[in-house]
């Protein structure tokens, strides 16, 4: 195995230009599990943790190398909440938002936040830079639009984010669990609401009918919450796996979405 340990973006992109098929290594919390347990043997590795440009967090731009530990202490309530649910302190110290996007697990915990706020994923290769909407980047389970020679530089959030935002997750324990269902809701002052759910489809999903139902309403009644819950349950497309059945996930998605929305409503 060959490893490159670039220190800045130019060096990184030059390295990727000569090894477009290289495996990118950030915190290693997904990749090393693969190496240890599935005996994945990358031939060329490009290690990202020394690249300062990837670790920047500049208002609406969050560098790919930003760790969960930093997100926990950051300014966006839902992002901080989700970061705190990830793994353990050991995982949060090294795991990154870029790695969560790179892995593109249907249950990735940053993804509902990025989808709810309509974030863009910024990717670069030598001499080129692209900005992709989240749904154009996340193409399926463990499948992204990243091309050989490209790296995720970071995510760009819209200029104004709703202050009312919440994230919630269902799993078997408080710590160290991959979500059975996870959910992020953001709501503007004027009521416009966006909701995204993970682990209930091939990739993170939005549920437009449910969004529309509550978006025009300043006051959301109990009947409307019932209907909101039903629309979310109807709209998701979960599967049965070792974590939960399709039926449980569908039900849980509705309940979780409703509770997460309730946290964004005035009391």
């Amino acid at each position, binding site marked *: *195995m*060959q*490893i490159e*340990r670039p220190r800045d973006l130019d060096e990184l992109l030059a390295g990727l230009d000569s090894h477009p098929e290289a495996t990118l*290594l950030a*915190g*290693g*919390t997904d*990749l*090393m*599990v693969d*190496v*240890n*347990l599935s*005996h994945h*043997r*990358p*031939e060329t*590795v490009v*290690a990202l*943790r020394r690249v300062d440009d990837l670790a920047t967090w500049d208002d609406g731009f969050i560098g790919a190398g930003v760790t969960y*530990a930093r997100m926990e202490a950051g300014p966006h309530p839902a992002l901080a909440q989700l970061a705190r649910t990830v*793994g*353990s*302190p*050991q*995982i949060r*110290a*090294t795991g990154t938002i870029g790695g969560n996007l790179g892995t593109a697990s249907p249950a990735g915990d940053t993804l509902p936040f990025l989808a709810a706020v309509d974030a863009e994923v910024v990717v670069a290769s030598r001499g080129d830079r692209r900005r992709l909407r989240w749904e154009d980047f996340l193409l399926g389970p463990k499948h992204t639009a990243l091309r050989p020679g490209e790296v995720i530089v970071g995510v760009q959030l819209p200029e104004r984010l709703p202050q009312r935002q919440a994230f919630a997750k269902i799993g078997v324990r*408080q*710590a*160290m669990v991959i979500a059975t269902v996870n959910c992020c809701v953001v709501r503007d002052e004027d009521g416009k609401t966006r909701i995204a759910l993970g682990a209930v489809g091939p990739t993170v999903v939005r549920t437009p009918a449910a969004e529309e139902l509550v978006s025009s309403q300043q006051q959301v009644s109990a009947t409307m919450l019932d209907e909101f819950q039903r629309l979310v349950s109807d709209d998701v497309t979960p599967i049965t796996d070792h974590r939960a059945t399709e039926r449980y996930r569908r039900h849980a998605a509705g309940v979780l979405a409703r509770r997460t929305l309730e946290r964004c409503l005035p009391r």
Partner: protein
Amino acid sequence: MIVTLEVNGERRTAEVAGWESLLWVLRERLGLTGAKDACQQGECGSCSVIFDGQLVCACLVMAADAEGAQVTTVEGLADATDLHPVQRAYVDEGAVQCGYCTPGLVVATAHLLTEHPDATPDEVREALAGNLCRCTGYGSVLRAVAAAQGASDPAGADREA
């Protein structure tokens, strides 16, 4: 390839293969068997070490990427004559049964007390959530942490873990 790093204050070099984790290199190449090899997937925390000032699972660090890093393992906590206060507290509180989880818990506790000495009982639980123990039931572990913090009333230690 050759990797050079600082382990417990000493400069060490090791010949490593691409697939090797820092945990493997510590144990098999450098003879430091304190960090334990259990799940190899970040789930149990028995391999916890301090890596450039952060608590990490050594099984998830690619050794080839540890070039230039400063690593502290459980072997680096005590000085020549005395146990580290966290080790002392674990002994005094009997927070050890089979001992497999102990090095990881001790390193995680020592790190917590450096970063956040006044952690509340709930914060202690959260901080140690990545370190599994299949024997003691955690009560004695939490009492040991409280003792190391110098707390007289280890509130919460006897709550169900």
